[in-house]
């Protein structure tokens, strides 16, 4: 036996895998080769010592963990046998729709965003939002009317003038505002306020109360400026009911000649 062969024989010798003949041959070589003998002795001691390292016990938790894992695995298998659940099917279906390219994903996201904005805008316009805006408009209108009315009751002529001006901002004034304006036309002490109130009533000339009020106002006016403005307005709104009042006016003694002339002209126009 050569020294090299000892290297292969020793591991077998340690595990008792050598037969008697092989053991005899090995021992014969070791007896004649001090180097191999020394090494074999040292290594055999190490091999023997290794066997003295005791075996360790794992912790008890290991079995519990194993059983939990096994249980989860078995459940998973059974679920797989039953086929995918609704949730999985839905996920799969949605997943199939989702594009793989980042560019397409970006496009998808943008499209959804645009759709969302459109839907949101439409909903706001049509339902709750629309009603909300109408309610707000109504509120603003009411506030303006209130402001106009309160301004028209002020002591200062310029304040009352502002009130009349404010009433112009109301698209469809209340009967209350119209009546306040008519009152201003008839009874306000200031000519400018009366003129302004008259102008403010022009957009509401279709209203029968306004028309009747204007006709009745012909008798009450003293200022030639207002009288002429009123006559012009009655002609503009083609109020034929004013004819009698105008006729009376022309016959009034001490009337401003310009007013009389204007009234006669109006009577001609309204015929």
């Amino acid at each position, binding site marked *: 036996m050569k020294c090299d062969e000892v290297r*292969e024989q020793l591991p077998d010798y340690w*595990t008792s895998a050598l037969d008697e003949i092989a053991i005899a041959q090995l021992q014969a070589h070791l007896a004649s080769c001090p180097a191999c003998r020394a090494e074999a002795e040292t290594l055999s001691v190490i091999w023997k*010592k*290794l066997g003295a*390292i005791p075996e360790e016990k*794992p*912790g008890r938790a290991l079995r519990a963990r194993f059983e939990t894992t096994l249980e989860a*695995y078995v459940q998973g298998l059974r679920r797989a046998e039953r086929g995918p659940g609704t949730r999985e099917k839905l996920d799969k279906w949605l997943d199939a729709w989702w594009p793989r390219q980042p560019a397409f994903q970006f496009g998808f996201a943008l499209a959804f965003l645009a759709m969302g904005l459109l839907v949101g805008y439409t909903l706001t316009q049509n339902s709750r939002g629309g009603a909300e805006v109408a309610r707000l408009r109504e509120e603003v209108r009411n506030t303006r009317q209130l402001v106009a009315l309160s301004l028209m009751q002020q002591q200062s002529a310029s304040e009352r003038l502002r009130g009349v001006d404010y009433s112009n901002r109301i698209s469809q004034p209340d009967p209350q505002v119209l009546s306040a304006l008519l009152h201003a036309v008839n009874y306000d002490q200031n000519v400018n306020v009366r003129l302004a109130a008259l102008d403010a009533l022009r957009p509401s000339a279709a209203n029968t109360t306004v028309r009747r009020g204007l006709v009745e106002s012909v008798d009450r006016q003293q200022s030639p400026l207002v009288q002429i403005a009123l006559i012009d307005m009655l002609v503009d709104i083609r109020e034929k009911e004013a004819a009698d009042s105008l006729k009376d006016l022309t016959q009034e003694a001490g009337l401003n000649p310009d007013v009389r002339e204007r009234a006669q002209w109006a009577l001609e126009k309204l015929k």
Partner: protein
Amino acid sequence: MEAQADQLVMLAVRDGDVERISVLFDRHHRMLFNFFLRLTTNRGLSEDLVQEVFFRMLKYRHTFQPGTNFTAWMYQIARNAHIDQMRKRRLEIVHDEEPDWGGVASADLNPHERMAHAQDISLLRRALARLPVEKRELLVLSRFQNLKYSEIAQILDCEIGAVKVRVYRAVRELGQIFSELSGEKAS
């Protein structure tokens, strides 16, 4: 005889009777735990790896073919689990770190002998921990797991002769480290 029984159980597991893997756990978990403990010197990690081995057995049960040596198959999985774990955590055995071992059973020795014995075991464990991992693994498989060289050859996918030479070299290197450590201790 037992090897035959293991193979039959594993075939049953493969064919759907997965709960029977408990039988294999009962038979082998302790050996596997010691295999990993000697490789890693870390109890917690070794338990994790045992767990991993049985999980992989379930996962790859379809690859188990009739006639396969179950023990060799199991240790192949165990080796791979250990290699993956080392890659993942880049965990190498830190030399001279106090390993996570239990006590030393030496009831039949007198107090003096018991001390010398305990010292030997401690040195040997440290020497083992210093051995390169593939040599340590080879010694663990051949010395502690009591596997035949033919089985180790199967696990490592090499010739039996090569296994024997490697075992010889591993023991020689371990001996050298052991005597170095003994010298440090003595001086």
